[in-house]
């Protein structure tokens, strides 16, 4: 999809609560997805990835869920901390099975004290 300009979707959560960030992707043939975190003034930082032959993958405090039927990804962050405040992007291959990525528009996560 196209960018959403200056107004990113924002998710506000209380510190300690769980966060769920959603992403819709466009290409049903995409075989690999990545979640990135971008803190203010910094470059994107890898969080977790998942291949299309899986529907769930867990990392440290993060879980990615993949629903290929509806072309939907979600990132779950357990026990959200202030340091989790950032913009989160999902990324899928630029072309079918490609090695370069197109990023989603991003969701801003704000952690409230």
């Amino acid at each position, binding site marked *: 999809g196209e960018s959403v300009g200056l107004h990113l979707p924002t998710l506000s959560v209380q510190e300690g609560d769980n966060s769920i960030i959603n992403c819709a992707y466009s290409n049903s043939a995409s075989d690999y997805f990545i979640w990135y975190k971008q803190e203010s003034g*910094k470059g994107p930082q890898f969080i977790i990835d998942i291949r299309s032959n899986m529907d769930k993958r867990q990392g440290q405090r993060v879980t990615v869920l993949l629903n290929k039927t509806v072309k939907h990804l979600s990132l779950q962050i357990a026990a959200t901390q202030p340091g989790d405040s950032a913009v989160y*992007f999902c*990324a899928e291959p*630029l072309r079918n099975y490609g*090695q*370069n*990525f197109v*990023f989603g528009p*991003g969701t801003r996560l704000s952690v409230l004290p």
Partner: protein
Amino acid sequence: EPEVTQTPSHQVTQMGQEVILRCVPISNHLYFYWYRQILGQKVEFLVSFYNNEISEKSEIFDDQFSVERPDGSNFTLKIRSTKLEDSAMYFCASRIQNTGELFFGEGSRLTVL
């Protein structure tokens, strides 16, 4: 921890001027990338580079753009004649193989006046 480094962190230039953005990828990485992010928008793929040649480029990467790996450590992005719409944050990224995690630099902010 090894990291991708970029210089300058911020460059201001006049429209029509040439700009070179520099990157030092992680030393044992073989695949190199440039992405850009217009303020408040999503990260966009520009170009990928492997074995001293461009492996893929996006529609954004027109004849005004070029990349070079002039020595064993640097990877540069040149914009021949900058336009106002080239104002963005430019991120360099690298990875050891053509799958898996992309490591991003902190970015170079380009402001075209």
